[in-house]
């Protein structure tokens, strides 16, 4: 185990800005990519159900 304490760990031997700057941006971007994907999926689901409703309405109208 390299680190005596949490603050030592966070300090990263004076390179905190660079190390955490890398890791945090790395993590944030990956998470953001997934989040954007999930959002894309949700809007897609929304659009699909809308399309479906419209479709049903149309076929109903032509039938009557």
């Amino acid at each position, binding site marked *: *185990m*390299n*680190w005596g304490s949490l603050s030592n*760990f966070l300090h*990263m*031997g*004076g*390179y905190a*800005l*660079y*190390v955490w*700057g*890398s*890791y945090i*941006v*790395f993590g944030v*971007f*990956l998470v953001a*990519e*997934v989040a954007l*994907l999930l959002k*894309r*999926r*949700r809007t*897609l*689901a929304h*659009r*699909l*159900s809308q*399309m*479906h409703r419209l*479709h049903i309405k149309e076929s109903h109208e032509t039938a009557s």
Partner: protein
Amino acid sequence: MNFRDIAWFKYSSPASFYFLAGKMIPWFWAAAAVFAVAGLYIGFFVAPTDFQQGEAYRIIFIHVPAAWMSMFLYVVMAGWAGIGLAFNTRLSSMMATALAPTGALFTFLALWTGSLWGKPMWGTWWVWDARLTSELILLFLYIGFMSLQAAIDDPRRADRAGAVLALVGVVNVPIIYFSVKWWNTLHQGASISLMQAPTMAATMLTGMLVMALACWMYSIAVALMRVRCIIVERERHAQWVSEMRGQLK
């Protein structure tokens, strides 16, 4: 038994692939998580401090995997795109489209982490070194691919135009990569000095490899998720899509 009956090509239809991918995604996520935890543990708690670079070298555990992924993904993307162009298989083109943003992301991250590493080590955020420059060009290639596809409304045309570009671009990749030899290379020198501590090289290497595996798993999972979205978007008028509309949420 007839060869065709084995349904080798069954999963090359977007509909069946959609469901297959749905089943595979959780497994890749799990693998990505396991490898990431292991890799980070090795990186932060097993690997010792570097006697030259201090703790700053720990950026390596994300920098190198990101840099590797950026190059691999481009080649894989061009491969899928080429298959799509040659055999007119829609699914492979969709795979190519799905890979591009992830590839661009890893390219950006390699640049970002590299810059953050370069400031303490080289004293500057950016130099016009061959490695760095070629990575930047790779980013432009990804962006070109995505912009071209975004600029074309018809998805089939976008697929095929993108494929031509990706294939032409892949010729460029090794050229850029090997041009390292014609430049003075700050990047390479630094990495060699790092290798001088042999005990560390072993743990460092494992850490790097495990993190690289995590990135692989992540990329696959994300690409599969994105390709599922693309499939649904493109096939929104198909019967099977409207049937499984409820499962999307």
